[in-house]
């Protein structure tokens, strides 16, 4: 009898134990009510100058707003959209997240329980606050009318070169009149021993987009319908793959990381890369110069790299949308953008900084700004977020010789079209 009573008490106490824990937790929440906690996901590279600048700005924000505690987490840039969507669908979305405009199209389309995942920030910003941003950048953060982010930076690819290797080979530096033929000739001359003339990830769709535009191709027509299967597209695909397969001036299998490593070890004279790596190259004490991308000889058009805008978005699930928007506005403010630009060569999106002497007189920043003006803004559509996969598959097929570029791009176009139609 005593054993039975003892056992029953034990079972009851086990059953009540979680309840006791829950009670403590709720008390804890009540104690912390005066502090607003914001969770921010950023996608700056680990140990980078961008991350350090970002963290110092977050510290400053918290110092100015003692009632706000910001918790930051890093996510990989290329996986930011997927990770945010998965978290949001599980009800675990951060308050603020850094996203690129070509990722917004994918997220903007998604609904959970009929609700979008990102807050439409149009109601949160005053017209005067909006007017500080380049209209092109602000418009890029809109998806089907909704303003899904506040633009904090913009970037695109450009031509970076090692002047010491050029001098050693007696080759003139690239300039704004360079054509693709000039670049090819220079790269061939510079390719010698273990030094390559040029490095770029030839199968990466992002790198190809600029060449495609220069050759007269386009990703989408004016109605937003995929238009990958054009002569310009296939010519540009053949041209870029031939850099490795035929001309052998790009090392076999060069990818983003190996391109960076080759340049850091002075094993390549020219690379096509963005401003985000400039600080790393500078820290590696690599002699470094920049020039706008060349002109396509046949079409007379300049290579027009894809311009993407990165900004801060607020989750629809955030319980502190006003504070989240304040933080997003702060991180996109002129002061913060200026510091990012000077420290990390991040291109700003606020109008006043375009003419700011600290920016316009900086040879690197002004060079990249010039390149940006030659770029093609990435459309903020679902199609843009889906285009990478079929184009990547088309590249694999042409690279392995399974299909020619026209066939591959036709299939890529059909695949993208089919996916957009929901088949």
């Amino acid at each position, binding site marked *: 009898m005593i054993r039975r009573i003892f056992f029953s008490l034990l079972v009851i106490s086990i059953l009540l134990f979680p309840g006791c824990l829950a009670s403590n937790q709720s008390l804890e929440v009540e104690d912390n009510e005066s502090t607003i906690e914001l969770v921010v996901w950023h996608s700056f590279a680990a140990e980078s100058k961008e991350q350090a600048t970002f963290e110092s700005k977050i510290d400053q924000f918290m110092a100015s707003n003692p009632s706000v505690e910001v918790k930051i987490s890093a996510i990989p840039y290329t996986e930011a959209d*997927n990770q945010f969507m998965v978290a949001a*669908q599980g009800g675990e979305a951060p308050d603020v997240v850094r996203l690129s405009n070509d990722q917004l199209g994918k997220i903007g389309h998604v609904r959970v329980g009929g*609700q979008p995942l990102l807050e439409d920030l149009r109601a949160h910003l*005053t*017209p*005067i606050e909006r007017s500080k941003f380049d209209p092109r950048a602000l418009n890029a953060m809109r998806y089907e009318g909704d303003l899904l982010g506040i633009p904090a930076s913009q970037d695109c690819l450009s031509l970076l070169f090692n002047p010491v290797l050029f001098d050693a080979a007696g080759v003139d530096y690239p300039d704004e009149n360079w054509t693709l033929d000039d670049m090819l000739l220079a790269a061939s001359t510079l390719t010698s021993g273990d030094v390559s003339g040029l490095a770029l990830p030839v199968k990466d769709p992002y790198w190809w987009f600029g060449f495609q535009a220069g050759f007269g191709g386009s990703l989408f027509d004016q109605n937003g319908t995929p238009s990958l299967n054009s002569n310009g597209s296939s010519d540009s695909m053949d041209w870029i793959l031939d850099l490795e397969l035929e001309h052998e001036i790009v090392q076999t299998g060069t990818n983003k990381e*190996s391109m960076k490593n080759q340049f850091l070890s002075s094993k390549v004279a020219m690379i096509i890369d963005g401003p985000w790596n400039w600080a790393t190259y500078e820290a590696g004490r690599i002699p470094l110069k920049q020039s706008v991308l060349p002109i396509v000889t046949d079409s007379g058009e300049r290579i027009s790299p894809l311009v993407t805008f990165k900004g801060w978005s607020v989750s629809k699930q955030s319980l502190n949308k006003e504070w989240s928007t304040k933080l997003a506005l702060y991180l996109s403010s002129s002061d913060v953008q200026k510091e990012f630009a000077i420290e990390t060569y991040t291109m700003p999106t606020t109008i006043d900084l375009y003419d700011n002497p600290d920016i316009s007189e900086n040879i690197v920043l002004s060079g990249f700004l010039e390149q940006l003006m030659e770029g093609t803004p990435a459309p903020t559509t679902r199609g843009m977020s889906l285009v990478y996969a079929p184009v990547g598959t088309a590249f694999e097929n042409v*690279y392995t010789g399974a299909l020619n570029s026209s066939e591959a791009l036709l*299939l890529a176009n059909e695949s993208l079209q089919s996916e957009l139609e929901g088949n």
Partner: protein
Amino acid sequence: MNRVFLIAIFSFLLLLPISHASEVTSLESDGDVGYRQVGLMWSTDIPSEEGTIFEVWISNETIIEISNATKHSLVRVGNVSNLLQPGIGEWYDDCQYSIGDENWNPVYRELDGTAVIPPGAIGVNCTLSGISSGLEIHIAVLSINPSGGSILSSSISSSSTSSDEEIIVIETSPYIFAIGSIALSIFILLFVLRWMDYREGRTTSRFAHLYIAPAILALSVLTFYPVLYGIWLSFTNADQSHLGDQSIIGFDNFITVISTSGFLRVTGFTLVWSVVNVVAHIGFGLLLAIALNSNDLRGRSAYRTALLLPWAIPSYISVLVWRGLYEPTGALNDFLGTDLNLLADPNGAKIVVILVNIWLGIPFMMMSISGALQALPKDMYEAAEVDGISNFSRFRYLTLPNLKSALVPLSLLGFIWTFNMFNVIYLMTDGGPNLDFDGPGSTDILITYVYDVAFRDGAYGVAAAWSVVIFLMLVVFSWTYMKKTNATEAVT
């Protein structure tokens, strides 16, 4: 008298520009137009003149002068030809004007977004955005006439009374489903156990089931519920745009799975991947275990430690190292003096991923078989030696049959683990190179492709159907394998 008249005329002429400036005479606000928004409508005493600018100022206190306020927005009166006129809801905020005929038209927009209304407008109705929710604010409109003179309207107070439109809907169906499936599985388990007790004649210990209740609960929550949830999901149209409001669609997802381009290819490669790996793991593991078990071997511990290293290093690190070795600029090409890009070649990549997984899996099999070898009775081998049985015959007729009880479950487990081995392929090739526009990559196996379907395509229902298909494949295989090998009898 003339002088008085002249002064009056002169004063009139001086005041003429001021009296011609549009002055805001009526100001109304509506706090219930949306979250963080208030509506503001003003009208002027006379039609607005070209060049006039209306600035909206807001403050936490009554606005007497603009120095204590913040500029919110502005509306310019000017030529509207060639300007955009976005419809209501198309621009960042809505603003309309009226020329007195009770029709409200959307304002025009300059390229920088400034609102422009045509000359002659006498009323403006704007939605002011960026207003803190629930806080009282004061609003005033400053009219600046073309000559630079300005008149500040009296300020009115307002507040945005609409709360956050986001309604956090607590979706109850998953919880009901979760509780239901857990309760159901507990009930079924208890019923089966009770029936087994009854069959075995165990009727004395009434509390036995209570003792094992925590284990049953854990099993229900951690095993049965996820499986049941996955099966339920496979019959729904759950995807990125339907999560939370998905509906049952029957067997559509299974039809999608079977009709996927590359279904047979990925299933075939998964089988090749699993069989080759398991055979190699068992084969090399057995060989090494026998070698390590040899009495003549010196430095056995050192060998054993060295052979355990692949298992001791976290697999994602060793896989990334292997990937680096196979890169075009990696050590393999340096060593061979070649320019191979194996990971970009569909067949090369398949061979590479299999080789890496073989390397990773051998230590576990080696250790398991080694343990089983040591448990074999030594007198059996001594008798064979006395009888003059050759080494191969000893292995063939003594070691192998006696190891069966260990090898059968090991190979079964190895098959299931390898079938669902995600890391190696994900980290080595991410399923690529991908030559199929709508299907799996060249090195995708079923489990890596399911990941793509779920988390890249966002097709959760289809991914769940793929998982159910994998589950069924493994159940059928395991059942058949156990039946054919009498595995359970061998173990017991």
